[in-house]
């Protein structure tokens, strides 16, 4: 650890986002888009970060690799600690080695994340040689093994192929192989199955679960899909309008969702509905960054909101052991689960 880095007192192995606030440029002004988010990702655990579009989940995930800064995303406060070392005090060279090395990422778009003009083999070996001290031959052998590990049939032939010859599912396997290239300890998976057909999704889910267990990976699973969370996550953090509004184990969140937003979001899924019946809905829309209320961000859409909700509410306003919700009316009867248009 570099001596001048700010050092976390907790040096146990973990990837910790602590009180992180990020802002994004909107019409020339920097507006807060992620508000004091805290997450702890441990080796061998899968943390599902779930929320609807615009809630800030992807911005948070990208910040962990210090991505997004060239697009104007700015850290306002807070920090991220990788095994105790602050990412924001890291030198550029160490940061470059960390990305795709100690921490790697699987993105949503298997169609665009690969370079169409290079063979699969050259793209995988490039990543391997960037992070590991290997000659071409060794890197090739490793690439072959990685493709086997991700369940690719006929891996030898795939190495020589170009991305357009592969189906979406196969491309996602290649990207997962690349993410495993340097034996990462942590992996950020941002909507890793969203662009795939359902039959392929299931297999990619199996693959991610197998790899995560075999390699004892700490995985941050960023998604809008409670189904994917149900499949893979050990722990869950629900985000709404820049804040974590509820967190707990996957059983706690599914068996006893406490925050009105989580409850409504889980209730309006067609897979848990009566066929033909009207679905419960959340009235209104997510307020964009810059238009967040001063108190609870969900208050305007919440049927339980009262005047007390206009004061800032802490994440442990409601709690049961490790299960926390940013709500002073958690678990109260929710008329919002009735139907509205």
């Amino acid at each position, binding site marked *: 650890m570099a001596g001048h880095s700010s050092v976390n007192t907790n040096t146990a192995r973990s990837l910790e986002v602590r009180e992180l606030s990020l802002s994004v440029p909107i019409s020339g002004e920097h507006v807060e888009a992620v508000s004091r988010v805290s997450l702890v990702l441990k080796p061998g655990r899968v943390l599902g970060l779930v929320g609807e579009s615009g809630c800030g989940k992807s911005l948070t995930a990208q910040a962990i690799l210090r991505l997004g800064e060239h697009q104007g995303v700015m850290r306002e406060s807070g920090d991220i600690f990788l095994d105790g070392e602050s990412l924001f005090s890291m030198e550029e060279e160490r940061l470059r080695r960390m990305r795709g090395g100690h921490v790697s990422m699987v993105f949503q778009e298997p169609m665009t994340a690969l370079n169409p003009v290079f063979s699969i083999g050259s793209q995988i070996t490039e990543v391997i040689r960037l992070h590991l001290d290997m000659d071409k031959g060794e890197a090739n052998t490793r690439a072959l093994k990685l493709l086997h590990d991700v369940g690719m049939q006929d891996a030898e032939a795939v190495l020589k192929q170009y991305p357009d010859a592969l189906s*979406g599912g196969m491309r996602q396997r290649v990207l997962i192989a690349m993410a495993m290239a340097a034996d990462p300890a942590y992996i950020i998976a941002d909507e890793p199955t969203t662009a795939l*057909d*359902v039959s392929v999704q299931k297999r990619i889910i199996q693959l991610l679960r197998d790899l995560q267990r075999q390699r004892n990976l700490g995985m941050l699973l960023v998604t809008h899909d409670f189904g994917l969370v149900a499949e893979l996550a050990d722990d869950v953090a629900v985000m709404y309008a820049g804040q974590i509004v509820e967190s707990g184990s996957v059983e706690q969140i599914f068996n006893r969702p406490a925050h009105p937003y989580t409850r409504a979001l889980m209730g309006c899924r067609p897979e848990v509905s009566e066929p033909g019946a009207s679905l419960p809905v959340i009235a209104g829309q997510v307020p964009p960054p810059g238009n967040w209320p001063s108190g609870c961000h969900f208050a305007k859409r919440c049927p339980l909101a009262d005047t007390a909700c206009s004061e800032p509410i802490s994440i442990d306003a409601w709690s049961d052991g490790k299960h926390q919700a940013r709500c002073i009316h958690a678990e109260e009867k929710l008329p919002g689960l009735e139907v509205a248009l």
Partner: protein
Amino acid sequence: MSVLKADGLSKSFRRGGLWGGGISHKAVNNVTFALKEGETLAIVGESGSGKSTTARMAMRLLDADEGSVHLLGEEITSASGNTLRILRKDIQMVFQDPFASLNPRMKIVETVGEGLRVHRPEMNHQQRREKVAETLALCGIGEEALDRYPHQFSGGQRQRVGIARALIVEPKVLVLDEPVSALDVSVQAQILNLLKKIQKERNLSYLFISHDLSVVRHVADRVAVMFAGRVVEQGTIEEVFGAPRHPYTKMLLAARPIAHPDQRKENNGNGGLDREGVAESGCVFRLRCAFAQDDCAGFEASIQSDESEHTYACLHPLDKS
């Protein structure tokens, strides 16, 4: 009575070959279905199954190579010019991406009112504006939206505008091509409820194209499952979801996202490998099918029936469970 009826629709596209040539690929192969008044028929399938191509042929956005389409009893496959334009008043489409399907430089009142210029030429500006406001209101959009532009709306509101645009000429049939796929789940619920409400009020018939089985189960009365250009199974939601007979349907249903972590299953021993490929002859699914036998190579089945009975194109169907 069926309001929309397709008989033996087929369509081929050429793939590859920069200047002609290439390989002809049958995207839709002998598809037959009938949509009854007031019902929702879903066509479900994965990418490349031909479901969108089928929808486009059904409303003559695309000409079929073979087969015919009847709308309210009239053959529309060979209609052209004015006749086609008049027929189109009765069948309208809602697209997946409401932003891509709205002209960014047109105000909402112009976009939504466009169909009136064609189909209700007798209306004047003020009448059109009132009709647009009324239709938008039905879709949950207030009058203040009339003079705004598409970029000023969220995805869900844009989809409401897209639905209003389709409804304004008072069609009998809506073809909905993945109408909620691009939306967040809370917004998706609003739009599904809205479609249900409008269907009831106006006795509309929906041809609902989707890849999402949970959504289909929720909205549809009947479903046709497509694989590689063919309908492999069709029936009511209860029949197809309750006791699928075709192995492909069963596989699709098993691949649905789970609703609760209690439903997690450990790996089923197929090694997580993707079995890909479509057979060139015989049953299209046999290369991926766990129940395939030798005689499947000589079995070329399309569902011929457009009746509402439960039908499936399989020599070795699964037991009724």
